[in-house]
């Protein structure tokens, strides 16, 4: 009898409304996974759908393995973190970016495993998450088909090769672009274990951390990143580490002119 009462009490507790869930704003995209992701990613924090977060994506997903996305939250003050996630991807979060001495701006490419909302969530210093995004239709398999370099078989020949450049923008800002050869295996392809870049950091020549990016398997093969660094003052060091502990690095000296268009 007592056991039964305890059980009933337990059920009553479980059934009680969870305040955080009820405080969540209704999802304008009506995603079936909104509440699940929101509770997991934002906990009890205040969440606001906010058009000040600009999420730029193409009108079609021409290639579901390489889908470009640019997040621009420069209209918001004191940005601490930027998440990019796709609700219906098996690996929903693609990046978790902390722009330490960088503008709240990031461009990269992700995989899409099906039609899904693609979103950015931006945390400001007041503890509020600002969310924006849109649905994109996509053919299946972005996360579950083998990467091109696995099919070609040459991934190991080019692993970690880094290309990049930096452009001095007006004022004190510098635009940094980096690409890296890496299969970015999701672990969702038969007999290919998860293997991905998991961290990219940008530091000044004095060793000051400028940008700190956590990277997950939903980022596209051969990842590409665009940052806007606040006050570069000389060469920028880029360091990347993958999930096997391999480290790759490069140094870029900002330029004030366009690259030669050979």
């Amino acid at each position, binding site marked *: 009898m007592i056991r039964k009462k305890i059980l009933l009490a337990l059920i009553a507790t479980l059934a009680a409304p969870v305040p955080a869930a009820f405080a969540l704003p209704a999802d304008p995209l009506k995603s079936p996974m909104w509440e699940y992701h929101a509770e997991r990613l934002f906990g009890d924090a205040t969440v606001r759908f906010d058009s000040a977060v600009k999420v*730029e*994506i*193409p*009108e*079609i997903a*021409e*290639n579901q393995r*390489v889908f*470009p*996305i*640019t997040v621009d939250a420069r209209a918001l003050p004191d940005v601490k973190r930027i998440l990019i996630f796709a609700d219906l991807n098996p690996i929903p979060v693609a990046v978790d970016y902390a722009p330490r001495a960088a503008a709240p701006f990031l*461009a*990269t*490419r992700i995989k899409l495993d099906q039609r899904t909302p693609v979103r950015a969530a931006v945390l400001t210093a007041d503890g509020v998450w600002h969310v924006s995004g849109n649905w994109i239709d996509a*053919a*299946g398999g972005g996360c579950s088909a083998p990467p091109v370099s696995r099919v070609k078989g040459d991934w190991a020949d080019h692993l970690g*090769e*880094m*290309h*990049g*450049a*930096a*452009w001095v923008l007006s004022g004190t800002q510098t*635009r940094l*672009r*980096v*690409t890296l050869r890496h299969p970015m295996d999701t672990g969702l392809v038969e007999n290919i274990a998860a293997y991905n870049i998991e961290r990219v950091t940008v530091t000044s020549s004095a060793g000051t951390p400028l940008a700190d990016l956590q990277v997950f398997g939903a980022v596209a093969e*051969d990842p*590409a990143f*665009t940052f806007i660094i606040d006050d570069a003052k000389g060469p920028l060091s*880029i360091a990347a580490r993958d999930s096997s502990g391999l480290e790759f690095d*490069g*140094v*870029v000296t900002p330029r004030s002119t*366009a*690259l*030669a*268009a*050979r």
Partner: protein
Amino acid sequence: MNLTRRSLIGAALALPVAARAETFAGAYAPKAEPVAEGVWMVRGADAPILFDNGGMIANSAIIATDAGAVLFDPGVSLEHGKALGALARAVTGKAVGRVYVSHLHPDHALGAAAFDPAIVHALPATRADLERDGEGFSDAMYRLLSDWMKGTHVVLPLGDVAEGEALFGGRRFRLFAMQGHSAGDLVLLDEATGTLLAGDLVFHDRAPSTPHADLAKWRAALDRLTAVQHGLLLPGHGTLDRDGGAIAQTRDWLDWLEATLTQAVADGLDMTEAGELPIPARFAGLKAARYELQRSVSHLYPGLEARLLPRL
């Protein structure tokens, strides 16, 4: 309430027939426009492949001969191919005796399912392309077009086409094996009327698409096409070209596209930014321009980055 599978089936059967009936009622209604003696053009929609247009976006051509109609590009699906076959019979009085597939892309090729593979001819490169990509295209088309694709399966052309003269049903053609839009682009010149069927090497007032493009080879193919004496030109997409402007327009777009994306990489733009670049006013008349620019960014940008961004 205890729902069993049987009670669910019972409930479904109890519904009126209309509620269970197939709701898809799409039917292809291609129209043939006579453009020269014994030559008809069948216009596709100047739009992306969408459920609303059934994927009927590519142009086709019908040519009358004594041995039956020649159908140049049989459409996207079994039903589309059948509709084009019926149209060819209606306008020429004879059934289709020869089908040419200009290149691998599904809006031009998958309608071959409606015909005996023995009468379907293509360049060897196109057959190889379809062996590799045909099933993937079919999956993609079923996803986008669903019921429009009913019954469609990949038919590989059995007839090999080689560059040179071809005689069919008393009608003389000159065939050209080109490439650039894809690895195999078939072009047909109808000798009697001088009508040039250019396939997707030429777009007209509709932005060119580049999923398998080699831009240098495409330009070389446009040079060759310019040198071929011809009258009317039927582009793969867009309107009939009466004044010879379509080849130049296609080249202008390709030149602009490559220069613009190259400059975008040199200026440090990422893909979304390149896809949002302004499209010059002279292309304002091109349908699906923004859509094709963004597709081309996807096709071409990573290669340009690998070439232009310095190795660190």
